[in-house]
């Protein structure tokens, strides 16, 4: 009770106009990020080796890997470890960070896509008042965000072991070549992007046309598209995670990997939607969004972070128990602290559980914690870092390897991506009404309540 205010047509017809400060923030982040990134490349390149960094490295790489006489694996690895390591780290580090940030922001977009479609096929009404925010995330970011992956098509050999180790060298990789080869890899990635972006644009178009024409026909059409998307999403998103993240260490395998990646994506998507809504309300928009909407986003964040931890443990526990070398090495690299395998990730490994499970679990447990800004906001900030931390741990041991660090390259790349994300999403947000005015469930959503007390 108590949410029985009525909202006038003007209040519902409002449009977002990007304030100058937000635009400046976005461009400032992009600019600062690029400067930091370049500084990081320059400093990293000059300090780690006498000779200029990246290009020399690539040559060195190809000369090692494309030699026709197949060397034993251990030799190739050693060559990496000894010489290539010092110089390779800058170029590899930039690519690894490009991959990390591309995946990070893509997962927000895909989480938002799942958010929209799963509510649509469940005939949910509560989210209708806030659905323009996930919509803006999907159509604002996805078509641009995939460019980062497209750029990496040309550098697959630099970070993916299977793409630069020639056939006949590594028996385990050879058995996977039918799946892990560049044409198929690029082909299915393009197919996934086409499906995801196609569905996002289609749903957005239906939603916008409904604003103008009203009626139920667009709403009804969106159900079939959403249902098809959810099924395709389940398969394609899992394979996307196998391809771009898991195949960094192609000897290792885990069938739950895609599910875990999905869990993390849903957490960050809900947190992002939450942050954007809070910002919009602070700017005076969307006054019809009430605590119950925040409460529900909080429940999702809470629930999916537990789900993430569940899959994290499910993966780790089975590998830890069975103790098979080619599976176990993945974790040995990440948490052992006492032997030569130590790469410097133990801090990140255990920190992962702290930021992505314990903080949201204890921080968002009570009802009030989910509804009040003062409690949700700190948790949201930790989770925004937490998803990055989680991906860092997935990507870096297989690419950068020893002695990871969070330096100028990491911060600069993330800042540049974040600035671009903010600009594109808020620009997309300004291109339509903040409320889907003709949506049949809008009234239900305006009166949304998660019960008294």
């Amino acid at each position: 009770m108590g949410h029985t205010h009525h909202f006038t047509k003007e209040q519902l017809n409002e449009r977002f106009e990007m304030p100058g400060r937000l635009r400046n923030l976005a461009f400032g982040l992009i600019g600062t990020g690029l400067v930091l990134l370049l500084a990081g490349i320059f400093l990293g390149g000059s300090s780690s080796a006498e000779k200029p960094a990246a290009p020399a490295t690539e040559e060195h790489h190809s000369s090692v890997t494309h030699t026709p006489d197949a060397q034993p694996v251990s030799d190739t690895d050693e060559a990496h470890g000894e010489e290539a390591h010092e110089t390779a780290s800058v170029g590899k580090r930039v690519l690894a960070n490009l991959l990390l940030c591309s995946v990070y922001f893509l997962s927000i977009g895909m989480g938002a896509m799942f958010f929209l479609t799963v509510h649509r096929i469940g005939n949910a009404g509560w989210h209708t008042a806030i659905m323009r925010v996930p919509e803006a995330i999907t159509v604002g970011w996805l078509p641009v965000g995939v460019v980062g992956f497209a750029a990496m098509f040309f550098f697959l050999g630099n970070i993916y072991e299977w793409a630069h180790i020639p056939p006949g060298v590594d028996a385990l990789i050879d058995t996977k070549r039918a799946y892990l080869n560049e044409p198929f890899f690029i082909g299915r990635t393009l197919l996934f992007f086409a499906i995801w972006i196609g569905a996002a644009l289609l749903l957005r178009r239906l939603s916008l046309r409904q604003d103008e024409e009203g009626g139920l026909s667009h709403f009804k059409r969106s159900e079939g598209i959403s249902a098809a998307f959810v099924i395709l999403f389940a398969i394609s998103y899992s394979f996307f995670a196998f391809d771009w993240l898991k195949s960094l260490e192609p000897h290792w395998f885990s069938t739950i990997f895609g599910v875990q990646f999905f869990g993390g994506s849903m957490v960050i998507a809900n947190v992002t939607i939450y942050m954007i809504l809070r910002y919009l309300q602070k700017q005076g928009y969307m006054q019809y969004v009430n605590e119950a909407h925040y409460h529900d986003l909080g429940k999702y964040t809470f629930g999916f972070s537990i789900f993430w931890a569940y899959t994290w443990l499910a993966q780790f526990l089975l590998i830890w128990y069975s103790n098979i070398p080619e599976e176990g090495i993945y974790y040995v690299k990440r948490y052992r602290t006492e032997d030569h395998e130590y790469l410097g990730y133990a801090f990140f490994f255990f920190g992962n559980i702290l930021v992505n499970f314990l903080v949201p679990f204890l921080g968002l447990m009570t009802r009030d914690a989910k509804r009040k800004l003062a409690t949700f906001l700190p948790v949201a900030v930790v989770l925004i870092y937490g998803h990055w931390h989680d991906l860092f741990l997935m990507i870096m041991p297989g690419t950068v390897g020893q002695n990871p660090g969070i330096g100028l390259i990491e911060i600069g790349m993330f800042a540049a991506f974040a600035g671009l994300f903010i600009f594109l999403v808020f620009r997309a947000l300004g291109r339509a009404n903040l409320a889907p005015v003709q949506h049949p469930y809008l009234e239900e959503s305006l009166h949304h309540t998660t019960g008294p007390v």
Partner: protein
Amino acid sequence: MNRNFLLGKFWNPDHVLEALEHLQDKGVKVYDVYAPFPIHGIEPLLDIKRTRLTVAAFIYGAFGLTLALTMMSLIYGVVWPVNIGGKPYIPWIAFTPITFETTVLFAAHGMVLTFFIIGPYWPGKKEVLMDDRQTDDVFVIAIDKKKISDMDGVKKTLSEAGAFEITEKEA
């Protein structure tokens, strides 16, 4: 201990809410409302406090967690250490699923038992029916007669709000 109740019976839940609002204005303390289904928005009118069952659940869960970790550590680490595949005697990761299950078990069962006792709804408890039709289509407002100072005024309020019948009952 029997108490005398004044009962206002209604056909319509909206009339119940209206009557409750007027009674609240007059400062009359309502004992309880009996209804065939939950009435949305009735809690503030009956001064129902927010449940502390969630706090109890947290305590039960924390107890279950502590119990599981203590028992497993004592049994496998101190009393009877068993070498299982060369794993540590107290492996936190292998303990996690059991700890999780025990936490859930204690929190859930603790909540149910607390609910039965505080409710009270334990099995076999003889339920008080203010009116047999309260399980079908009648809504009953029950007021402890001892707490009514102005009997006529209360009756008037109930009938004006739409009560079709006003009776008394000892329960």
